[in-house]
Structure formats: structure tokens, C-alpha cells
């Protein structure tokens, strides 16, 4: 029998709780070994029960391979070659992002055991910058869900309160960061699946502008909405992570050829003169009072640090959930057609020939939520209904995007809203699919409009984290980070020189 792997030195474990820049500096200076950081991450995962029945954070880990990669990095650093901005940093990757030599199952039975023969551009970029991929994180099947309860491999639990969901669909990645296993994780968004779990788990989650980050290797759900995003403990960590994965990619025709700024330079930009829009549609009567209260506190902090807060309106906000639940399933019904049992993944034989095989494979391979959305998507695209649903939804989508353009054109730099309508709920508490869909009510608009948005922790409600959302114009992630850095610092009670005290 194999003896248990040695535990990482205490210093490495401590380092994992420090900012990314400190981790990387220690590695570069030789004060810490990448393999120690990797061991510390696995130790932490063991300590909090991330692998087992309890938290169920990972669908796959490969300690040997990660350790091997860490040793290669050590050799690289020994030869004084540039090890990259994430040198030695353990990173967790959502299981719908293709990784070489590790499973990529999308939390679905239909891809059980599938190992991708190619790697997503974002993962290549992480590795090229010295990150060590330690595992694939649990998720709602094909990223459809808001709680990570829809995984074919069981739900993930929220490390803050294990009776509660971590949010979804990037719940595994959010739990890996919130549980202190990694400093940085990749998630993906179609309607809020990075920001919503970030909010539920009390961490930072960023969805970049559509086109800012390559989708090559991200298993498509709603192609016109999907983006890879980052989950991190701090705004600065998230900024560093996004900078590594962002940028044009010749393998993704929808990726944009727009220069990538150094987001972490916004750290000391301050908030003076920034105009924060407060959209009234995001603060409805009946908003959860604790969330309303934390948001007001954040807006007050903005005012005190020299930003202006202006009430604005995004009149088509109410349509974002209905429009989202037409566009996303429509695209999903087509994107998921390739899972047919012919070339890879699950195949369920049938007596009834080819059609029988298709039906049996897909019936057994897809869970109820995926089936529901495929049916919905097929319906809204079918002859006779296309104009009434899909086409109509696309025109309303254009109006929603126009709302954002108008409000930003009016002199507003960023918008501030709650990320979610409630804090994390208990496992099994939300049973009605439509009620579940409302978890994304404040996040889906940004995906429909393609604008960047992020969630940062702004406080707590009865011990549960509350997230605030910052939304910026297309490709204006820098100003979004500037607003996030300022708020993060203000809420921590720290000030830049010249910022007046509260």
C-alpha cells in the first residue's frame, strides 16, 4: 500500500493564505518550493474534506501530476528562466474547461471518463505562467444551475456553512477558493455562474467582457453568453488571474483583439471623481433587507471616499430572466447535440437502431435540468415558434444591451448592485426550477449585454456572506477593478493617503 504523501511545511500552508503576489515572490526567491505549495493545497483539501462526501469540491485531482509539474517549475526557476506571474500557484479549474490528461466531464454522466486530447487556451495560459493545475471542480451539469446541486456527481457544499449550497454553477471552484485550498480558480459564466457563487461563498468573482477571454476549450453552453471567469480571495488576486488568461486567441473567432491592461495597477488609483450608478431596478421594494442594508453601507463608503453615487435606470431589466431563459437554452439545445453516443462519452445500446441509441444515450446521460433546457431550447427554435420566442428574445436582448450603453454614455463609470437577491440557501431548499432561476436575476443582464461584471464581498447577513456587484462598460475592466479595489479597501477600514477618514 502506498504511504500517505508527506505534509507540506507549515510555512507553505501559511503562504497559501497570503496574497498571490507574496506566494509568487516567495517561489521566485526560492523561499518556498512550488511542490510545497501544491502539497499545502492538497493537505488543506484533505483537512476540510474537500474530496469526500462532505464538501465534494473536486471531480478529479491528480496529486502526482501536479507534483511533477511543480518540480519542473522548480528546475525552471533554478535555471533563472521566467517562471511567470503565477509561478508555483496551485489553481483549480471548473470541469467544463478542457484540460489535458485530466477528465473533463461538465458534471455530467454523458462525459463520464472523457479525457480531452487538447487543452483550453485559458489553461494553456495558466500553465505558461507557472500555475499548477491541481484538480477539476464540481459544477452544475453543463453549467446549468445556480446551486451546484445539479451535478451528476452529487452537490458541493458551501465551506462557510456546509448545510448550504455554494451557489452555481461554478460552486466547486468557489468552494475551493473559499475553503482555502487554492488562491485562484477558474469558473465560467452564462448567466452569473461565477459572481453568484462568489457572493454565496464570500469571495471575489469576475466575469470579463464577452470576447476578452478565449472560449476555446470551454465546453459551450450558451455560446453567445459564455465567458471564463476567475474566482479569488481578493480583488488583486482576481486582477492578476484575469490578466493571465485574457487576450485575443486565434482559435476563438469571438475573442476580441483589444489590448489587455495591467488591472492590478488600479490598486492605488483611488475613487475620487468616479461616478457610481445605482440602478433603481436592482433595488426593488421587497429586496432582502440585510442585502439592501449591506449595499447601502457600500454605497456610503463610496461617497465617503470621493465617488459620486447617482441613481439611474435600466428600464428593460425585468426582461433579462425571460430573455436569458430563451437564448441560453436555444443555444444549449444545439451545443449539446454533439453528445450523441457516436464518438465519445457514454453510449447506451438499443434494440431500436440508431434513433434508439441516440434516445437511450441522451436519456441516461443528461440529468433533469439539462433535459428541461434542451426541450425548451428545441421548442423556441422550432418552425412556427422561432419568431415569437427566439427572434423576439434577441430583439429584447438588444434593448437590454442598449440600456447599459445609454447609462454609461450618460457619464456613469460603473454600476453598483446586489449580486444575488438572497444569501446562500440550504441544500434542497429551492425546489421550483423557476424560483431557482431567479437566483441570477441581478447577474444575467451583464451576460446578455456582454459587459464585464464582478462580485466582491461587502458584508454578512447572520453569518452568511453578501456580495456586491460592480458592472462596467465593454472592455472597461480597469475601471471595474478600480471601483472594486476602492470598495474592498474602504470596507476593510484601510485608506489611501489623501482619502478622508469615515
Amino acid at each position, binding site marked *: 500500500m502506498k504511504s500517505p504523501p508527506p505534509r507540506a511545511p507549515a510555512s507553505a500552508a501559511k503562504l497559501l493564505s497570503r496574497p498571490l503576489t507574496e506566494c509568487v515572490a516567495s517561489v521566485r526567491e526560492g523561499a518556498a518550493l512550488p511542490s510545497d505549495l501544491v502539497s499545502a493545497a492538497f493537505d488543506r483539501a484533505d483537512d476540510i474534506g474537500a474530496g469526500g462526501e462532505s464538501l465534494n469540491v473536486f471531480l478529479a485531482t491528480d496529486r502526482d501530476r501536479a507534483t511533477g509539474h511543480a518540480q519542473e517549475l522548480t528546475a525552471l526557476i533554478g535555471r533563472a528562466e521566467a517562471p511567470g506571474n503565477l509561478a508555483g500557484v496551485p489553481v483549480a479549474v471548473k470541469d467544463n474547461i*478542457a484540460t489535458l490528461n485530466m477528465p473533463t466531464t*461538465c458534471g455530467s454522466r454523458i462525459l463520464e471518463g472523457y479525457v*480531452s486530447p487538447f487543452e483550453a487556451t485559458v489553461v494553456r495560459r495558466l500553465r505558461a505562467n507557472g500555475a499548477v493545475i491541481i484538480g477539476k471542480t464540481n459544477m452544475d451539469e453543463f453549467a446549468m444551475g445556480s446551486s451546484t446541486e445539479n451535478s451528476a456527481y452529487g452537490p458541493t457544499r458551501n465551506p462557510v456553512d456546509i448545510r448550504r449550497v455554494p451557489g452555481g454553477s461554478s460552486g466547486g471552484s468557489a468552494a475551493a477558493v473559499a475553503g482555502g485550498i487554492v488562491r485562484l480558480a477558474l469558473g465560467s459564466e452564462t448567466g452569473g455562474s461565477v459572481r453568484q457563487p462568489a457572493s454565496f461563498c464570500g469571495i471575489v468573482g469576475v466575469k470579463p467582457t464577452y470576447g476578452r477571454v478565449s472560449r476555446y476549450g470551454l465546453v459551450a453552453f450558451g455560446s453567445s453568453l459564455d465567458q471564463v471567469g476567475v474566482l479569488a480571495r481578493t480583488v488583486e488576486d482576481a486582477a492578476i488571474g484575469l490578466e493571465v488568461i485574457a487576450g485575443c486567441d486565434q482559435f476563438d*473567432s*469571438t475573442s476580441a483583439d483589444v489590448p489587455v491592461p495591467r488591472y492590478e495597477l488600479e490598486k492605488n488609483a483611488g475613487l475620487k471623481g468616479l461616478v457610481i450608478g445605482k440602478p433603481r431596478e436592482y433595488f426593488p421594494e421587497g429586496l432582502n433587507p440585510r442585502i439592501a442594508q449591506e449595499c447601502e453601507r457600500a454605497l456610503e463608503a463610496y461617497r465617503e471616499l470621493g465617488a459620486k453615487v447617482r441613481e439611474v435606470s435600466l428600464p428593460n431589466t425585468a426582461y433579462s430572466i425571460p430573455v436569458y431563459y430563451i437564448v441560453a437554452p436555444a443555444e444549449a439545445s*444545439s451545443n449539446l*447535440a*454533439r453528445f450523441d453516443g457516436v*464518438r465519445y462519452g457514454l453510449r447506451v445500446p438499443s434494440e431500436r437502431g440508431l434513433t434508439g441509441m*441516440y434516445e437511450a444515450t441522451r436519456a441516461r446521460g443528461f440529468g433533469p435540468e439539462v433535459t428541461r433546457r434542451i426541450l425548451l431550447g428545441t421548442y423556441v427554435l422550432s418552425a412556427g415558434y422561432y419568431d415569437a420566442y427566439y427572434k423576439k428574445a434577441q430583439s429584447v436582448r438588444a434593448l437590454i444591451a442598449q440600456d447599459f450603453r445609454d447609462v454609461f454614455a450618460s457619464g456613469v463609470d460603473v454600476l453598483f448592485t446586489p449580486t444575488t437577491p438572497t444569501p446562500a440557501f440550504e441544500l434542497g431548499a429551492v425546489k421550483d426550477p423557476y424560483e431557482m432561476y431567479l437566483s441570477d436575476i441581478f447577474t444575467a443582464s451583464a451576460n446578455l449585454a456582454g459587459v464585464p461584471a464582478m462580485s466582491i464581498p461587502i458584508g454578512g447577513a447572520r453569518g452568511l456572506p453578501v456580495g456586491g456587484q460592480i458592472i462596467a462598460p465593454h472592455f472597461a475592466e480597469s475601471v471595474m477593478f478600480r471601483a472594486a479595489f476602492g470598495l474592498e479597501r474602504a470596507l476593510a477600514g484601510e485608506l489611501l493617503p489623501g482619502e478622508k477618514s469615515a
Partner: protein
Amino acid sequence: MSAAASADYEMVVGLEVHVQLKTRTKAFCGCSADFGAPPNTNVCPVCLALPGALPVLNQHAVELAVGAALALDCKVNATSVFARKNYFYPDLPKGYQISQYDRPLAEKGWLTIGELDDGTPVRVGITRVHMEEDAGKSVHDRYAGATAIDLNRAGVPLIEIVSEPDMRSAADAGAYLRLLKQILSYSGVSDVSMEAGSLRVDANVSARIRGTTELGTKTEVKNMNSFSAVERALDAEFARQVALLESGGTVTQQTMLWDGAKGETRPARSKEESHDYRYFPEPDLPPLVLDMEWVARVGRAIPELPDARRKRMIEDYEISAADAELLTASAGMSEYFEAVARASLDPKAALNWVMGEVSAAVNAAGVPIDEFPVRPADLAELLRMVREEVVSHTAAKRVFARMVETGKPAAQVAAEEGLQKVGDDAALVGWIDEVLLENPAEAARYRSGETKLQGVLVGLVMKKSKGRADPRKVNQLLPERARA
């Protein structure tokens, strides 16, 4: 069906032609688009539709598609949109085909397929030209009880050329297809080979009472693997529809398959029937926006098309319209002719040789003209040798045959085979004497004044000399040798 009844009806035909573009790589990935590679060797994550793979449009395919559209006088749209055509089939790896739907690459072109007796041109409208990708291939006969899938063709770039229902007979359809094939070949956008699957035809056919303008219910006929099959299938389907209408029945809109062996069309099985394809804009590809100046440049770069070439050749080389028509049937043949005509300065001889010996030899060899071993310059040299009487016309044909076999230049072959004209009196006298000796009866009649036998005897001398004898000199020498 009575002949009279049939004459009361008119055939209405529109054609949908799929053409493979001549690109090195596939439409949306870097895999080779070559025909005939071992199964599943030209594949990658994109054309296998592995989870996470995304398409990237091949710019060369766009250029060829635009070239084809312009060659067919279509208006190229500054913005066209790729769409997904969704259906399940094992050789369709993504579960959808990337095509263009409501915003195609190009629209509103036409082809002139002939003229009426009064000189009015007969035009067939081209509704649209759009880009799409091919599917893979199902192989049913390789493994017992199982179907194999070869995805080498999956993602190969195609254009679909959709005509208006402007054709009124199978012959019209044949003329349209031959001209279309000619134009696509001339413009260099496709190999247009039905055998290699780079050109495929589906036909929409309906019958209506002659003189009416309303369209009848149409059927779609598939599975035709040659132009003559298209013509036969159209006639058969038209006859079927007329018989149905005559007997008081109605035509149902459906897909028919052509059974060449039985010479009839039959309804396709239900799974080959039309689907609800649930088209919607392909979200993985941005709209195709073309710089119209670039489009104009592509248009200027299209090689001369058959019509223009026919007109120019009639003028440049003073050949007949019929000859020009025959020569331009293939781009390669007309280019070959022009090269020989220019190099030999003898268009008339070039025409005779290219239409005669060259096309016969090319057909016999079964190779495309650009792989024919006798290069135009070499043939021009042979023509010069004939004109300067270095070789006789008869010998020249033997020289040519050896050139086809060996690929050697004309002069070398003539020298090696001893086929240069022999004007040397001693040799000629020897051959003449032998002929007179071997044909005593004819020689006697000739001597007795039957001068029309001169030709026969000269011919025999030419034959004996294997064409090398100079016939002019033989004619001079014959009378005196006969008297000797």
C-alpha cells in the same frame, strides 16, 4: 399517359448544386481537405466536434466562394451570416451543420444557357450562393452488422448554388449544369468532379399545364451521380407527376431518390425526408463582413470565363464559332490550344492537331490536360517541322505518338526514329524500284498510260519508307523510274 396529355404539361426545374471549394484546408480548421486519405486521418478537435472546440473560418474558402459568386454574376453581400442547421446524423459530428441561411454570401446572379431562334438569350436566374461545410461519410459495407464513420470530409468547404425554377426541360438542366461546371472550373474555384464528390446536384421538379404561370407542387430529386442521370431522372419524375395529375391525383411535396438501374424515381424513406432544421445564427462565428474593395479585387483576379474566351478566340485566331465552342468546353484544352497557336504561329494547324490528335490522346490516356506529357511548346515545334518539311505529315503523326509515350521533344524523336524526310535520290530510287518490282500489274498499267495510278504508287512508296520519303520528289522521280 398519352403523348397529347404529356404535351399539355410543362416541366419546371430548379437546381441546387453543391460544389467543393479547392482549398488546401477545411472550412473551419486547419485539417487537410484532400480527397482519398485513409479514414479519420484528416481530423482534429474542431472537425471531430470535441467538447470545447470552436470553428475558425478559412479565408481562402471565402475568397473562392466570392470568386464563384462573381463568376455567376451574383451580387456579393457586404455582410453575410453563418447559421446552424440542426439535425442528428452519425456522420454529422456537431449535431448541426454550419451553413448560411437568411443572409447568404451572394444573391441574384444568372447564367445564359443558350439562345432562342430569334437570338433572345435564355437565362437561368441564380437565387443565391452560400457557404457551408460538408458532413462526414457513413461506411456501411466495411464491418458486418456495424456502420463505420469517416470524418475526413467533415468540415470540407462547400458552396451551394441555388437556381430559380427557370429551366423547362431536362435538356435545359443539362445545359445549365455543363455551363456551371465549365465556369467553376475556369474560375479555378473547384475541381467540379462528380466522381470525387466535389459536385453534387439536387433537383426541384414540378409539372404544370402549359401556358399557366402558377407553380405546381414540386418534389426534390436526389441521388443522381452524373449529368445524364440528372436528365434521365428529371424526365422520369416529370412523367410520373404528369401521369399522377392526368389520373386526377395530386403531387405530394416529398423527396424522391433516383434509381438509375430501374430508371425511376421513388420516395425517400422517411428519415431522408425534410426536417425542422431549427436554423439560428451561429454564435461561435461573427457575421462575415467583406471589404467591398477586396471583393472587387477578387472579381478582377477571376480568369477569363468561357463566353469571353470564345469571342476572343474567334477574333484572335480566325477560327469558326463551332470550333471555338468545342475548344472552350474545357479550360485546359483552350489554354493548350492557345499556347500551341502562339508558339507555332499557325493557329489553323494548331486547331487541327489539338482537336484531333491531342484530344484523342488525352482521352485515351485519361489524364487531365495539364498532366499531358506533350507540352504545347513541343507540339508547336513539331508543327514547325511539318511546315518546313523536315517531316512529312504522315511521319509527324508517328513522331507525335512517340512524344506521347516518351515525353521527349519532337526533333529528338524524329532523329531517333529516323523519321526526317528523305530527299536523297538514291534512297528514293531504291524504294520506287522496289515498289515497281513488287507490284508488276500496277506498274505495267501505269507504263501503258494509266496515269491515275501515279497516286497509288506514290502512296505505296510512302508506306514503304514509313512516311519518310519526300512525296514531291517521289512524284518527280516515278515516271522516269517506270520507264527505266
